[in-house]
C-alpha cells in the first residue's frame, strides 16, 4: 500500500502546505509520516515519496541518511545513538562506545538479543561539552543522556527493561 493510500488525509495536508513548484519541501514531514508505523522508512515508502515529490530516490535517501532522526532500517525498541564526533571523541566517546558494546555483547549498529536496544554511532548531537553522551529514541520520545559512563548506561538499560515489563 502506498503512503498516499495509507494516510490520505495526512499526505494531503502536508502537500497542501507547500506550493506545487516547491513540493519537494514536503519531504521531511512525509518521511516522519512514513516511519511512524515501522519505526523506519521502508524502501517502498522511499520510492513513494520520491515519486510524489518528483525527486529521485537517491535524493530522499540522502536526506534520510543525513538526519539521525530518520532511519532506513529496523531497530530495537530503543535506539541508543552515541555521538562520536571529534569533540566527543576527545572526551572519550570512542572508548565509551566500545566498552558499552563490549558489555552488551553487540557491535555498533546491532540490536541486543531481547530486541530492546540498538546501538548506533552518529555525528554531532550538539552536546559536545557533556560528552560522552547519547540520545535514546523510543516509545517515550527522544531523550538526551549526558556525561555518561558505561555503568550509568547499563543502569539505564536495566531501568528500561523493567519499565517495559511493567507496561506488559
Amino acid at each position: 500500500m502506498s503512503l498516499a493510500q495509507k494516510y490520505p488525509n495526512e499526505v494531503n495536508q502536508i502537500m497542501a502546505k507547500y506550493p506545487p513548484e516547491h513540493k519537494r519541501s514536503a519531504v521531511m514531514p512525509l518521511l516522519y509520516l512514513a516511519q511512524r508505523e515501522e519505526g523506519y522508512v521502508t524502501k517502498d515508502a522511499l520510492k513513494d515519496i520520491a515519486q510524489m515529490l518528483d525527486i529521485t530516490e537517491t535524493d530522499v535517501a540522502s536526506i534520510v541518511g543525513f538526519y539521525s532522526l530518520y532511519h532506513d532500517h529496523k531497530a530495537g525498541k530503543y535506539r541508543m545513538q552515541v555521538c562520536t564526533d571529534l569533540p566527543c571523541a576527545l572526551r572519550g566517546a570512542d572508548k565509551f562506545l566500545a566498552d558499552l558494546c563490549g558489555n552488551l555483547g553487540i557491535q555498533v549498529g546491532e540490536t541486543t538479543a531481547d530486541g530492546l536496544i540498538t546501538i548506533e554511532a552518529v555525528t554531532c548531537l550538539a552536546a559536545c561539552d557533556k560528552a560522552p553522551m547519547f540520545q535514546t529514541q523510543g516509545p517515550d520520545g527522544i531523550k538526551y543522556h549526558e556525561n555518561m559512563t558505561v555503568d550509568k548506561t547499563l543502569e539505564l538499560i536495566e531501568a528500561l527493561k523493567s519499565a517495559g515489563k511493567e507496561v506488559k
Partner: protein
Amino acid sequence: MTKQLTLTIDGVQVTVPEGTLVVDAAKMAGIDIPVFCYHPKMEPAGNCRMCLVEVGRPVIDRATGQAVMENGQPKIQFMPKLETACTNTVSEGMVVLTQTEKVTEGRKGTLEFLLTSHPLDCPICDKGGECPLQNLTVEHGPGKSRFLYDEKQHLAKHVPLGELIWLDRERCIQCARCIRFQDEIVGEAVLGFEARGRMTQIISLSEPGFDSVFSGNTSDICPVGALTTADFRFGARPWELKASASICSQCPVGCNTTFNTRREAKAGGEIVIKRVMPRQNEEVNEIWMCDKGRFAYHYAESAQRLVKPTVRQAKASWTDAFDLVTQTFEASKSDVVVLASGRLSNEDLFNLKSLADGLGGKSILYTDMGGGNLTAQVGVGQGTDLGKLGKGDTILVVASDLYEEAPVWYLRVKQAADRGATLIVANSRHTKLERFARYAIRYANGDEVKTVADLQGDSKIAQEFANAQNAVVFFGSDGLGLNGSANLAAACAKLLQDTKHVGKANNGLIGVWQRANDQGAWEMGFRPEADLASAFKNKIVYIVGADPAGDDPALALALKGARFIVVQDILETLTTHMADVVLPAQAYTEREGTYTSGERRVQRFYAAVPVHGEAKADFAIAGEIGRRLGLNTENGSAMVTFDRLAASVKDFAGLDTNKLAEVKPQWPIVGRGDLYYGGTTYENKQGLGVQLSTAAERGEAVSLPEVRAESALRPREDQLLAVPVTKLYDRGQTVASTELLTQRIGEPTVSLHPETAKRLGVAAGGRVSLAFNGLSAEALVKIDDTISAGVVLVPRSMGLAVREPVSVQVLGLAEAKVS
C-alpha cells in the same frame, strides 16, 4: 557588456568581468590556485578548502565613499582568515595572495586532513598518474602526516554504483563533483551523499544503478580514483597510454574524443583502444561525452570483423574481388545502385557518389529520416554555439528524444534552458527533456506537421518563437518514418524562414540524424529512397556500411531480387551473407577522415590503431573501383580525397586540412599540468573543425519544398499503430559488441498505453506478440501513460523491423511465471 573589474593577484594585474570567481581570475592570469571540489563548469561548493588564499579589499571611507589612500596607494584591508578562492567573486581593487606562508600552511593542513583516511593505494589506482590529489600532495602537501596510521578508516573498495561505474569509498574525498554534475549539469540527481561527517559516502539508489547516460563523465572529473569505469578498470596506467584524436561516430553531435591506446598481451600483442575520453570543444561537446560514445567502441575488435575479401562467400584476393566487381559494374553501368549509410566518412561518400555518378547509376542514402536537403539551406549558420544560447533565445525540439538520440545535445539544450532560453519540446509522448521545457506540447501521432505549422499562429508560444533573438529547431524521427520526417523538416524550415531565423549564427535547423554522418551524406548528394525493393530489382547493388537484410526481413527479400550484390562493411552481417562479393572495410579507428555533424561542422578524425587484417578504407576501395573503371577517383589518401571533395562540393569550398586543424584558446582551460581544474578531459590540439555556411547565409535563393498538410498514418479506432522510436543502447552492431552494455540494451521492449495494456491483458514486464508487415515478433511490455491509446512505441534496431509507422496486431502472451 558586463562591468570589467581590475584586481591584483600575486602582483599580477588582471581585468575580468564582474562576477568572476577569484580562482578563475587567477587562472586567466596564469596563476593556478589548487582546487578539488571546484569545477569551472559547475557552481562552486566550497567544501574541500584547498583553494584558501589571502584576500584583501580596499578600505572605503564610509563618509566619502572613496578608497582610503595610504602612501599614495589605496589602503588594503586583509581578512583575518584565509578565504576560499572558489566561492568569492572578484571586486574592484581586490588584492589576492596565493603564495604567502599563511596560504602554504593552509594548503598543507587541508591536505593532511584529506589524507587522514585516504588509502594511499596509488600503485593500483586507475587515477594514479593523472590524479589531482596525488599531484597536489606532491606540490603542496606536508610530506608527513601527524595522524596515526592505525586509525585510518577502512571502507568498502569495491562498490558498484551501477554496472558501468565502480566506487571506492576509501578514496572519496567528498568533493561532490559527481553529485553536482548529475544534479546541475545533467539534471538527473541519481547520486547523493548519505550520512554526515566522516561517515559521508556516495550512494545511488536508481534502478538500474547510476541510471544516467553521462555516468562516465563523473570518473573524468573525480579528483581522486573513487569513481572508475568498469571498462577501463585496471586496464593500464595513464602514462602508458598513447592518445589519438578522434570524433565519436555514434550520433550526429560529433563529440570530439581521444582514443587512449596501448599494446596489449590479452589482444595477442596488438595495439588496442583502452579507453575513450572526451576532448574539449566548447562549441560541440564542451568537455563531456555520453556513455555510448565512451563504451561502445569494442565493435572494431569484434570477432565478427571482416578481414579478407570474399567472392561468392569464398575467401579471395583483393585483385580477384576488384576484378569481378569492376567487370560487373563495367558490364551494366547505369544499373549500379550504391546504397551507403551515414556511418561512412565524407571522403567515403564522396568517392562512392563519384563512382555512382561516373557510371550513371543511382546513389541512395540508407536512412529512415528525411530533410537533409533543407539543413544545407536553412541549417544553423556559421559560428553556432548552443552554449551561447540563453535568455531571449528559443529552442524548439520536435519529434526527437534528444536524451536517447543525441545525449550531448540534450545536455547542451538543457543548459541553455537553465540559462533562460525558452525551450519548447513537442512530441507525442513524454521525453526526459520535457522537464526543462517552458512549453511542452504533446501532439497526437500524425499531427507533427500541424503542430509546427501552429507555431506560426498568434499563440503565446508562437509569439515567443517569432520574437526570439535566436531560434534553433531540432527535428527528429521520433515516431516518424522517412516521409513523415521529411514533411516535418519542411514545416520546420518554413517556420524558421518565415520568422527570419535563418542565415545567421545560432539560428536555423538541426537534424537529429540516425547516424553520425547522415548530414555529410546529404551534402555529398546521397538521397534516401522510400521504395528500396523496387530500387534493388534486377540491379547491381553496392551496399556500403549498412545492413538492410539484418534490419528488416522485407529488405532481405528485396535484395534477393537484385542481380549482383557487393557488400562493403566492417562486420559480418546478414547482408554480407547474401553478397556475391564482400569487401572488408576499415573501422574509423583504423584510418583518418572527416565527418559532418548535425550542426554541419566538418571535423577530422585520425587513425588510432593498426588495420585489422586486409581491410581497406571505404574511400580507398571505392576509389580503386573507380580508377579501374577509368574514373579519376583517389584511392590512396583520405586527405587528398578531402581536397578533391572541397574543390567540387560547393558548401565545402575553401576547406582544407589546415582549416580543420585550427584551434583557439578555450575556456575553461583544461589539459596542461593542472588536471585538478577541468578533469581529465583532453585539451584540443588537433582542430575544432569548421562549420559549413548555409545557402541562406550566403544570400542565395532558398527554395523550400511545399509543406504537405497530409500527414503520417494515424492510429485508427480498431487498430494499433506501431511507431518507431530511437533507443540509445540498441542492438545495432556498433553497440551490441560491447558486452558491458548488454544489461542496458536489454530485451526488445515496446511501450503501451495503460488502457491498451489492460485491454490486451498484459502488465509491465509481460510479453506480447506483434504482427506487422507480414512479420511477427515478441517483445516485453513497458507501460507509458503519456502515449496515445492507439499507439505502440517500437524501438529501432532492436530486432523489430518497424521503419515507418505501420498498423500492428498485438496479442498479450500468457507467460509462465518465472519462480
